[in-house]
């Protein structure tokens, strides 16, 4: 579909592409071809050879001869050693209205010039930039990773780069851009000479000079990257430290330009970026280098970053700030673990220290208040984690080879002395192939010792004898340490640190495919700094064998084998896929009989054993009604489910079969929407709360669904045979929103709330279960209990926002220490982190499966807009509404059914002060709001009378029904 026209005869090309080359005659033609094949034809190529010593210049001249009107070749008289000078020469020779740069090892996307030119002409921009994609040419599937994709999502035009600081600080490439040539000439823009990182300065000056910049989301440039993902060598790392001087020099020059133009804001963004990114590039290498290099680097860095404003440091997250601070102080002992956490963000690397109820990275530097703030890691929530969920730093301290055995020793950090000194310690090492393991290998660890801040271990691993890899496809093996302390297991990776692995001898190894594929096992360091092993070939026989394997891995036989394997894998995936399961389920519906007396229970999509399904189940058990009860659970293992019921995992084959044959379905949210229900099965939908926020078809998102999608949803809703309501409010809101016809409504109230109604009637009856719950939670018997149960907030994309206390929790604990214990229960989509300073006074109860006992236990409730208010009201105990963001919440896309502040049966606080004031006197609240509470219950839950479970069981499971 290309037009055959004579090659552009016009004198002026639209775009000149400057292709620079140095000793790369192999790839140069590919780069030039990518320009000649552009869909925009009026483009010229200027190849600038930086005085190569190979045939690059000849190749360039041959290309010029083959395309006389489109390609020119230039050669520098002597090698310049960088990319800047050749590009400057290319620019000077260019005739096009626009100029672009291309490196000989990269290529342009086919429509790059057309898209950049179209944008430039449409917006009149001096500089148009497009998406660059890094192509990992040596990865297995030639991975393509877009470069700063968030900058290149939409077409954006700015009159000044100050309006788009991210562009200025992140995209410092000069190659993915198209510059108006007259703009370059007018501003005298050239690349600096004789210095690395010339792109940074050129881009910065071009951005700042441009009167208009346009970004387009089209991919324009393929940056071919051929770096192995494994670690760099020591000399590589040293080399990079040496380059650091150049980087700083470039940054200083950019700062001078910014200073001249008075762009302080942009400078701040650049400082922050420097601390977060540039510095980190080098920090990663520090653990592998000796003290001399570390010191030189620290001195250089300090010389530059110490003048950064405090604001720059304030915007760093905890780990970055700690690293920057410790580097300035040259506190290597504490910096090395911090760098480990910087690379492995979930890792706990330091022993930590607790002071005055806060957690600090280390016990040093704490005298200085500013440093103390930097070292404070309470927010990271390390202290709240159980040992099993901790990913601990495990530093290798010894690596030696004795015959066929590797002697390893290391130290696992013991943060806050989580593992007590008298703990029973055992450990084992595990080797597992990175790509695909037929099996893993486990070796016992000889000694594990508790040494306070660390747990040290030593092992002798007989790899040569006991380790038998296949030899092909499992070349790289990762090693982990499983440490068990008093029955709790934690798994760590082994950080290589400064142990010299580069010169460590390799071990002999005997693969299952014989020594002809590999005969040595050599240690190596992964990209994350962890110890691993790689199979290598030492003897000539092994090297030849390996070469043969490599050839055959790409031969026709291997391709056929791979195809077959993929085919089988696809069949297996298909058999266990959701669609297949749904198909088989519907066949089961037709073929299998109903099992009378079976009831499938599910609460909150299987996440919990709770709520009304639980209350109904317990009522059935109490009466010893002969039913076969089946509970559905989500996740790997059921926790907290009853022992006397059959448990099936949600979406498992047994689950589907149970649903297909059940006589009753009882759930509070919805069995999978795609599963139809047979008419013989009765579906009792208990629902899980009255509504303040708009639900179902009242939500805008549902209203605008396509006809097809609405129909499918309606069919899923039509499966309900009975729908429980707590009051006429539910009939007006939920029943309408889910389009549930009148005859399906059960006006009986919620079984889960029976206990609340009963407790309100007999407030003085003690409940032993509650007392033991209070003891288990560690609630002080003399203090009254407040429950704080906020709902979640959604982000614009619909997902839940992270939870943060909307009031100062430490101030709360301080003020009410003698009066209250505060229980905090966030929505199950959220997680709570408490500072240790509030221990004993504030307790996180988010993990408790059932909320009802917590409601019973508490003397008052603080909530915002959670539907728990409707249930708690039944207890007739005080409620305080902390509606600090009501305006925003009620106006978000969903909307609400009523105006909460007007109807709330308790004080509505908008600020922390108002909240604390309202909590001052609970007794007064009780009396003041007694009437309002009663009215609220009558309006929103008049059918909750304490006998819901009994009446439902009477109606559906009474003996007259003749259970089998």
């Amino acid at each position, binding site marked *: *579909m*290309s*037009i*055959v*026209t004579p090659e*552009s005869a016009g004198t002026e090309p*639209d775009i000149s592409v400057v292709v620079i080359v140095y000793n790369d005659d192999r790839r140069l033609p590919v780069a030039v071809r990518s320009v000649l094949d552009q*869909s*925009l*034809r*009026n483009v010229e190529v200027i190849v600038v050879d930086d005085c190569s010593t190979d045939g690059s210049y000849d190749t360039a001249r041959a290309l010029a001869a083959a395309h006389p009107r489109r390609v020119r070749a230039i050669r520098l008289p002597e090698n310049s050693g960088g990319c800047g000078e050749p590009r400057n020469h290319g620019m000077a020779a260019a005739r096009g209205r626009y100029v672009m740069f291309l490196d000989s090892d990269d290529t342009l*996307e*086919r*429509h*790059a010039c*057309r*898209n950049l*030119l*179209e944008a430039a002409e449409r917006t009149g921009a001096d500089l148009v930039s497009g998406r660059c994609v890094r192509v990992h040419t040596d990865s297995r599937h030639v991975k393509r990773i877009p470069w700063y*994709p968030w900058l*290149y*999502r*939409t*077409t954006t035009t700015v009159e000044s780069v100050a309006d788009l600081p991210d562009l200025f600080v992140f995209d410092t490439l000069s190659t993915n851009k198209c510059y108006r040539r007259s703009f370059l000439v007018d501003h005298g823009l050239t690349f600096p000479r004789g210095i690395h990182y010339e792109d940074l300065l050129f881009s910065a000056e071009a951005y700042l000079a441009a009167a208009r910049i346009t970004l*387009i*989301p*089209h*991919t*324009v440039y393929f940056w071919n990257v051929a770096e192995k993902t494994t670690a760099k060598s020591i000399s590589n790392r040293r080399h990079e430290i040496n380059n650091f001087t150049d980087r700083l020099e470039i940054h200083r020059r950019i700062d001078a330009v910014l200073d001249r133009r008075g762009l302080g804001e942009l400078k701040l963004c650049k400082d922050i970026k420097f601390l977060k990114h540039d510095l980190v590039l080098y920090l990663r290498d520090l653990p592998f280098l000796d003290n001399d290099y570390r010191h030189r680097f620290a001195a250089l860095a300090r010389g530059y970053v110490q003048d950064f404003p405090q604001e720059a440091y304030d915007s760093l997250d905890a780990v970055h700030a700690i690293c920057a601070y410790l580097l300035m102080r040259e506190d290597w002992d504490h910096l090395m673990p911090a760098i480990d956490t910087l690379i492995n963000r979930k890792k706990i690397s330091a022993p930590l220290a607790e002071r005055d109820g806060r957690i600090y990275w280390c016990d040093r530097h704490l005298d200085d208040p500013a440093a103390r703030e930097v070292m404070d890691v309470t927010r990271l929530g390390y202290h709240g984690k159980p040992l099993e969920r901790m990913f601990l730093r495990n530093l290798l301290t010894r690596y030696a080879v004795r015959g066929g055995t590797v002697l390893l020793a290391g130290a696992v950090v013991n943060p806050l002395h989580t593992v007590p000194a008298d703990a029973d310690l055992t450990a084992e090492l595990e080797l597992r192939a990175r790509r695909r393991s037929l099996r893993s290998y486990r070796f016992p660890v000889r000694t594990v010792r508790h040494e306070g801040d660390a747990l040290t271990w030593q092992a002798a691993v007989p790899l040569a004898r006991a380790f038998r890899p296949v030899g092909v496809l499992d070349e790289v093996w990762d090693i982990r340490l499983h440490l068990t302390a008093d029955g709790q297991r934690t798994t760590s990776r082994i950080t290589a640190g400064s142990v010299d692995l580069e010169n460590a001898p390799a071990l002999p190894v005997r693969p299952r495919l014989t020594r002809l594929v590999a005969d040595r096992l050599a240690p190596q360091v992964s990209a994350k700094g962890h110890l691993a092993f790689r199979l290598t070939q030492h003897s000539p026989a092994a090297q030849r064998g390996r070469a043969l394997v490599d050839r055959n891995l790409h031969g026709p036989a291997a391709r056929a084998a791979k195809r077959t394997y993929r085919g089988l894998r696809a069949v297996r995936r298909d058999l266990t896929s959701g669609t297949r399961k749904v198909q088989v389920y519907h066949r089961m519906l037709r073929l299998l009989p109903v099992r009378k007396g079976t009831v499938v229970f599910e609460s909150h999509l299987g996440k919990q054993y709770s709520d009304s399904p639980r209350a109904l189940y317990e009522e059935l058990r109490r009466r010893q009604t002969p039913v076969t009860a089946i509970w559905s659970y989500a996740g790997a293992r059921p926790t907290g489910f009853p022992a006397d019921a059959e448990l099936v995992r949600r979406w498992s084959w047994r689950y589907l079969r149970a649903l297909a044959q059940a006589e009753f379905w009882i759930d509070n949210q919805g069995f999978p929407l795609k599963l139809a229900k047979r008419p013989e099965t009765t579906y009792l939908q208990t629902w899980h709360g009255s509504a303040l926020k708009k639900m179902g078809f009242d*939500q*805008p*998102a*549902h*209203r*605008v*669904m*396509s*006809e097809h999608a*609405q129909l499918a949803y309606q069919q899923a809703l039509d499966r309900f045979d009975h729908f429980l309501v707590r009051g006429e409010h539910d009939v007006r809101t939920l029943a309408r929103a889910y389009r549930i016809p009148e005859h399906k409504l059960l006006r009986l109230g919620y079984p889960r709330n029976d206990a609340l109604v009963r407790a309100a009637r007999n407030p003085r009856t003690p409940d032993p279960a509650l007392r033991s719950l209070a003891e288990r939670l560690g609630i002080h018997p003399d203090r009254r209990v407040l429950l704080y149960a906020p709902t979640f907030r959604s982000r614009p994309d619909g997902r839940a926002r992270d939870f943060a206390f909307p009031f100062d929790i430490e101030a709360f604990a301080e003020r009410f220490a003698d009066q209250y214990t505060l229980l905090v229960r966030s929505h199950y989509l959220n997680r709570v982190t408490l500072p240790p300073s509030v221990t004993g006074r504030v307790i996180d109860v988010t993990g408790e499966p059932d909320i009802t006992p917590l409601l019973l236990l508490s003397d008052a409730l603080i909530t915002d807009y959670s539907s728990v208010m409707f249930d708690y009201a039944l207890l007739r105990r005080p409620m305080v509404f902390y509606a600090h963001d009501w305006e925003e919440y009620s106006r978000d*896309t969903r*909307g609400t059914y009523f105006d909460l502040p007007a109807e709330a049966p308790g004080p509505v606080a908008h600020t922390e002060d108002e909240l604390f004031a309202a909590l001052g006197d609970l007794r007064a609240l009780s009396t003041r709001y007694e009437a309002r509470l009663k009215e609220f219950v009558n309006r929103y839950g008049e059918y909750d009378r304490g006998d819901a479970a009994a009446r439902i069981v009477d109606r559906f499971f009474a003996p007259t029904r003749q259970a089998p």
Partner: protein
Amino acid sequence: MTQREIFFVANEVNELGGVGRWQHQMARLLSERGHRVRIIGISPPEVPMDLGAHPPYETLTLYDRRPPGRRKPRLGLGRFDPAVRRQEASRRAVAERLSRAFRAARPGAVIIVTQVWAMEWVALADTAGHLVIGMSHESFGATRHSSRFARVRRYYQDVDRLLVLTQEDADRWAVEGLTHVSFLPNPLPLTPDAPSPRTEKAVASIGRLDHAKGVDLLLDTWAEAAPRQPGWLLRIYGTGEHEAALRRQCTDLGLDDSVEWAGRTDDVVGALRRSSVFVQSSRGEGFPLVLLEAMACGVPCVAFDCSPGVREIVRNGEDGLLARHGNVSELADHLGRLMADENLRDTMGERARQNVRRFAPEVITRRWEELFAFLER
């Protein structure tokens, strides 16, 4: 100016609807500029549109009856399935008629493929020496959730340019990796002599009475808005399969006194000139012509912000008001604002009339001709 041969290849030559109207108008505009225009339809229309007695272009339809969709190969046979091969062969034979037409044209002709289904035949034809421009006349979001998403990627991959309706849609396609994408909006379908006097207390809605146009949402909106502005009338133009249900809903909401069912109209300008506000409550739109028409008549629009096309046409707060998609209360608030404020109606209506000139036929035609020239560079 270069005189060109221009082919439109579409699913049908004259199917009733937005795309059909656009195609007819563009073909007329380009032939008025001296180009030789032909429209080729793959299949005859289901509901034909009247093209007038002497359209200024030639037409041709390839099939007598609508051809079936592409066969899926039976399990394991892949492209060797004889049924698939037979269908392929017969499609090639039909595509050969396209090839003959293209070969007869001077080199440098432009082939505009209006819809992706038609591209299945153009891809089989010989287009050497000509420019091929593929088009998608719906929003990215609408394509994303249909089988057309895969088909656009497959059949349009080698065209010289893929055109969508707005910059925002083009950006989303570009992020998906389609680097030959650009955009060109639809032209204003009519240029009324005089604007609406905006004196009648009437809100107009024009569109088919089906699920996509969301008139049920409009009735809910009106139930919130009407009581606050007594004396106003909602006039609903159009017919469709949902009419009976919608009238029932109207009665149930107690709106019979303030809603008029005006039926289908051929006189859109007349309908708009009898109203002071235009409302659109669609579940999905591409580049809705009716909003352009309302604005050209100086009638300020209130609409759901359901697609980039709507955002492109109406500048929220400047020449019309947009509500978040599906948010009935917000749409009602916006309607209320305009109904309550004559000044606001006048300023927004006048601005709408001015602003919509950027889609004037001569402006859009010029952009097409510039595009042809640009693609030859």
